[in-house]
């Protein structure tokens, strides 16, 4: 494994709803916290990559942080915006062009399901809803591989319990499986409390060359892999008016394989994972798509508690999207923030036991894009 890039500073603005604070200001707060964590100033940043989907251009934050003349590139890549900012920062440092810089993501979305599309037939006909895709995909998967409704409820209940231990999470109340199953049916078989909601929040990460990391942190975390993949022919994607007759794997499978090859390790080496949980079924399916089990094995794994914080493979230890909500630009970086905390041993009462060494993140979203990172200490 190469140790080329290190994360030496992390900052977050609480997820959820923060009245009176713009999305970009939540990003600025996250940047200042990440800089303080690394013990550096904004003037030490040689480059920045940043983005949001609904809260404006990231690069204008320099007017608040300081007009130092650094290279600041806006990133817009749907649900992989944060992952793409991180990939860009990683590549910039690996290329040798710069020594230290920052990746930042933030967002602030309106309430309710994401509003997609303009005035064309697709949206007008009531088909432009991301929630429908997730309902269809897990409905088919449950029938094919024997996943139960109770397993979906267990995933959402775990998210609410983990979120309740995370002071930066939106949802702070643990929900029972009964409450989750009895909440309104939004997109069969998925109920309201199985879904995440669009939200607000910001995350920033200071990255540098691995060989200078100890100047900034006594617990640097190394970015072993960062991969972003778009969809290939035959995959089953969100917001697709048609699918081909042939069936192929999705971008998650490709991003996961690329990341494991880059890191030179396999799924069996991973101690904890943050997996895209737009809803409870997505977490279940993404366990298999990322190589952590075979299709159908999730039923027993989840029923026996293997993905709980004390289990064999803890998943979404900070409550995931279900407890944090999904501010698109910040969501992928939140996962990395949580993994850095866990690998430093700083995750408090939700700390994964036995000194985890390798941690994995995965995002998936419209229009069929996935980003994966692998971190190690």
């Amino acid at each position, binding site marked *: 494994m190469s140790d080329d890039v290190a994360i030496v500073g992390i900052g977050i603005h609480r997820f959820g709803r923060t009245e009176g604070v713009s999305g970009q200001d939540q990003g600025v707060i996250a940047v200042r916290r990440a800089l303080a964590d690394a013990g550096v100033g904004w003037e030490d940043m040689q480059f920045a990559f940043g983005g949001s989907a609904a809260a404006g251009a990231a690069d204008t934050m320099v007017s608040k942080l300081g007009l130092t003349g650094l290279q600041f590139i806006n990133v817009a890549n749907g649900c992989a915006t944060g992952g793409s900012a991180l990939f860009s920062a990683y590549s910039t440092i690996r290329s040798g062009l710069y020594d230290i810089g920052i990746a930042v993501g933030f967002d602030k979305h309106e309430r309710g399901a994401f509003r997609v599309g303009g005035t064309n037939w697709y949206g007008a006909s009531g088909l432009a809803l991301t929630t429908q895709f997730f309902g269809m995909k897990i409905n088919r998967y449950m029938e094919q591989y024997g996943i139960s409704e109770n397993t979906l409820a267990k995933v959402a209940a775990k998210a609410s319990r983990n979120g309740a231990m995370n002071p930066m999470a939106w949802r702070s109340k643990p929900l029972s499986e009964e409450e989750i199953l009895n909440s309104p049916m939004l997109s069969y078989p998925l109920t309201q409390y199985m879904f995440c909601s669009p939200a607000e929040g910001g995350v920033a990460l200071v990255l540098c060359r691995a060989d200078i990391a100890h100047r900034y942190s006594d617990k640097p975390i190394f970015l072993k892999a960062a991969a972003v993949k778009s969809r290939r022919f035959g995959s089953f994607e969100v917001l697709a*008016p048609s699918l081909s007759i042939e069936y192929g794997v999705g971008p998650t499978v490709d991003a996961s394989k690329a990341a494991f090859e880059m890191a030179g390790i396999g799924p069996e080496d991973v101690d904890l994972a943050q997996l895209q949980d737009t809803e409870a079924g997505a977490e279940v399916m993404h366990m298999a798509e990322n190589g952590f089990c075979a299709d159908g094995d999730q039923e027993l794994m989840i029923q026996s508690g293997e993905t709980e914080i004390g289990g064999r493979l803890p998943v979404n230890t900070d409550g995931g999207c279900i407890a944090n909500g999904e501010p698109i630009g910040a969501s992928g970086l939140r996962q990395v923030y949580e993994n850095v905390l866990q690998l430093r041993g700083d995750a408090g009462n939700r700390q994964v036991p036995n000194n985890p060494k390798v941690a994995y993140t995965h995002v998936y979203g419209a229009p069929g894009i996935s980003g994966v990172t692998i971190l190690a200490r």
Partner: protein
Amino acid sequence: MKVPVSGSDGVLVLTEAGPRLLGARCTRCGNYVFPVQSGCPKCTGDQMETVELGTRGTLWAWTVQGFPPKAPPYIGETDPKKFRPYGVGYVELPGQVKVEARLTEADPAKLTAGMAMELVLDTLSTDAEGNEVVTFAFAPVAG
């Protein structure tokens, strides 16, 4: 009078024989896409011909839309008191493509992957001139 929802060019036509979906077929590899588009996502070819797609197929995946979509873009009923859930699914047209559509059936107990479906019209709203604004949907084949 029935009029297709705006933006239906290259998507839906109303013929005397009933509604028809328009797709594109790649003249190089034979792959079908819906709706009409200019390039082939399978072979990267750029020679596509517009074709009428089949009107019968089988249900491949489905869900039920349980809450009113936001307007815009939705032009159907958005009042939570009047909204009625509608089915959504992919219908596989044999040898062609899987098309995403509204389903006329919204009862999970009456929807099963593999069931036979046929193309119909579904009314979304009434326009200022009193026309029924329609889109396409699939209905279970009777019997």
